[in-house]
């Protein structure tokens, strides 16, 4: 679909680019010591995709083992290592950096009209801290593996002999990469906006990244201190968390979840930002309720710090604290609901183009709504007693994490791929992958809801035969889902070697990143771009009706 890109919409002046793109400088050193946010974004994208492949294969191995009730593929310990490493790699290495570090790094300065992020060297430092931390995680995979679950609950994590220290050191270091990226983005959004880019003209992707960065800066340090105390606990036995030495395991859970619940919002908020962009650009319509969505991102960021106790209703936490946490959990559900309603309302009277990013956005809306609604069961006190730590929880967080963030990440990738690489992917392969991912995902995780409420506990290596059929369907679904994701990856990867050149503005987006050349040259813009209209004032919008509506 190509809109008339030559009619640069009012308000932007952008001399036609001369000079090459940011990809022109060759040589490994130009990549290792680059200060260019676009290259750093690409390197993050490569690393995140690689770890997504590894953790995804671990997931398929887990599902393959669970096809049969009996423990026939691997023994107990290996299975525990499989699901733990699947969880740890997905959380720390894939889903937290995925959208902010790769898409965010690439698109944020472009959307702001800035030459680069506020602290380019700090950006490079974050990338290297990420690689350094990732090396610890890889070492712990190869060393003795990790079998504590990604949550590292004591006293199991202080008594097991597997590679807990190297994995926690890895997560500790990765935390700093996340903090410094968040810090960088907050300062960039505050200080480096081009003239005319006021707070109300900021694309919603930037509001989402801004809220995510606030959580990253305020929550990740508590994870850092938790892991540091866990390492000291294992080495010196100081007795803060380990009951054998006088500590309290529930105190560890408080420390851990104080970070980890805001962390799930670090994961989903950038996904919201991507969906706000996709839904508006591809239905050629202004977002429905800009202020509501922008402020709900910030509201989620703040309220997310008040609700961590709903992970601990049955873990020995006091009944009063559980009741307070349950009440506040419902407060955080409201802004999320507002967002979903607003996205659906954006489709009203639009002109919807069914290209791959839009397909993924619609898949997101379907899956994330299920994920969000099932969260209510787990936030309610009495039902959570029955459902906690069963496959109902596994299905819930996969619907919001996988169905939410990963689908938004892939959708965002398809959306900005032409701008990033200058190459166009094949629409057919993209849409086929969206369809397969949709079918595979529901087939994998919906049976887990039923199995979970029937009492099937999570992290089980062998299970009672009555859950056999659910597991069978779930495993088949996971293979379909894996196929879909491979096709999506293939479509993007092989487009690099394909001949299809991408136009300057394939989707007709009017936020600033579409104003520069494709792929953008090293310093993004020639001179200082200026903006005098909102990010969603598309040419197709019929302002004549405005009198009628005003």
């Amino acid at each position, binding site marked *: 679909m190509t809109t008339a890109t030559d009619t640069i919409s009012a308000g932007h002046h952008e001399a036609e680019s001369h000079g090459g793109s940011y990809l022109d400088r060759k040589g490994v050193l130009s990549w290792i010591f680059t200060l260019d946010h676009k290259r750093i974004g690409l390197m993050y994208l490569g690393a995140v995709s690689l770890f997504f492949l590894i953790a995804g294969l671990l997931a398929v191995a887990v599902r393959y083992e669970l096809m049969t009730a009996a423990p026939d593929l691997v023994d107990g310990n290996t299975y525990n290592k499989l699901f733990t490493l699947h969880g740890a790699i997905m959380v720390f290495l894939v889903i937290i950096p995925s959208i902010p570090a790769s898409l965010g790094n690439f698109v944020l300065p472009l959307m702001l009209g800035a030459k680069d992020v506020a602290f380019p060297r700090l950006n490079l430092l974050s990338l290297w801290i990420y690689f350094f931390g990732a090396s610890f995680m890889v070492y712990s995979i190869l060393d003795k593996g990790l079998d504590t679950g990604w949550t590292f609950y004591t006293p199991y994590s202080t008594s097991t002999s597997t590679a807990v220290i190297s994995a926690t050191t890895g997560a500790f270091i990765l935390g700093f990469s996340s903090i410094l990226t968040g810090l960088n983005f907050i300062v960039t959004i505050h200080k480096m906006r081009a003239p005319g880019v006021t707070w109300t003209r900021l694309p919603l992707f930037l509001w989402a990244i801004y809220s995510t960065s606030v959580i990253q800066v305020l929550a990740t340090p508590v994870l850092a201190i938790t892991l540091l105390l866990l390492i000291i606990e294992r080495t010196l036995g100081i007795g803060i968390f380990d009951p054998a030495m006088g500590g309290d395991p529930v105190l560890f859970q408080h420390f851990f979840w104080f970070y980890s619940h805001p962390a799930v919002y670090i994961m989903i908020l950038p996904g919201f930002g991507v969906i706000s962009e996709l839904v508006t650009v591809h239905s050629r319509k202004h977002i429905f309720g800009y202020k509501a969505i922008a402020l709900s991102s910030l509201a989620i960021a703040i309220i997310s710090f008040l609700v961590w106790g709903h992970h601990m209703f049955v873990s020995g936490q006091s009944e*009063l604290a559980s009741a307070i946490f349950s009440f506040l959990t419902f407060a955080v559900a409201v802004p999320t609901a507002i967002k979903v309603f607003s996205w659906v309302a954006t489709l009203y009277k639009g002109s919807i183009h069914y290209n791959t990013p839009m397909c993924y956005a619609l898949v997101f809306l379907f899956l994330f709504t299920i994920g969000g609604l099932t969260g209510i069961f787990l936030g309610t006190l009495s039902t959570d007693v029955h459902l906690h730590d069963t496959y109902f929880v596994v299905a819930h967080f996969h619907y919001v994490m996988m169905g939410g963030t990963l689908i938004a990440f892939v959708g965002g990738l398809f959306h900005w791929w032409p701008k990033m690489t200058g190459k166009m992917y094949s629409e057919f392969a993209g849409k086929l992958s969206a369809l397969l991912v949709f079918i595979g995902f529901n087939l994998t995780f919906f049976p887990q809801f039923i199995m979970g409420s029937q009492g099937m506990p999570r992290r089980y290596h062998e299970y009672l035969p009555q859950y056999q059929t659910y597991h069978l369907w779930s495993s088949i679904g996971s293979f379909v889902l894996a196929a879909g994701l491979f096709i999506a990856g293939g479509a993007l990867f092989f487009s690099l070697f394909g001949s299809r050149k991408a136009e300057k503005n394939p989707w007709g987006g009017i936020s600033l990143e579409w104003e520069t050349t494709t792929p953008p040259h090293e310093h993004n813009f020639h001179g200082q771009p200026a903006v005098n209209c909102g990010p969603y004032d598309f040419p197709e919008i019929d302002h004549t009706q405005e009198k009628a509506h005003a």
Partner: protein
Amino acid sequence: MLAKLQAFYEKYGPDYVKEVLAGEHDPYGNHISALPVYYAIYGALLILTVLTVAVSYADLGPLSLPVAMLVAIIKASLVVGYFMHLKYDTPFNVLVFFGSLVFLAIFFVFVMVDLNSRGTLVAEQENFSIHRAQDPAEVKPAFVTPKNSDHGGGAHGDKKDGH
């Protein structure tokens, strides 16, 4: 911007030292306090330190923690306000500093709400008393310390032994 810089440089000259710049602003608008302000703050901090130590020797009983914390907060606010110039800084920086304190307070308050109210509804779920039930029927508050194996556990532990 640069013109202002040149003017500032000519006016004060490179080896400018003693000039009292109370209330003067540098070209960026950052506040420069006068030298006596620094020494006054330093003096106040020393006095407060001496006060804290003195308070700890005078046995105030339950009041000693709040008083010590109050003095520490006053000292901290002096350092933050004057030495770190937060008093004259942009509002967003002030928001960032106090915002982090607010989230810290959230963490403290919710965890202490949990720790305090653990035994309220069901007595057995008493907070933190070391009960290691080797023999299910009988409970002895064994607590493993490396060397001295006398019974540990907080005040709750002493009062409460097995049924």
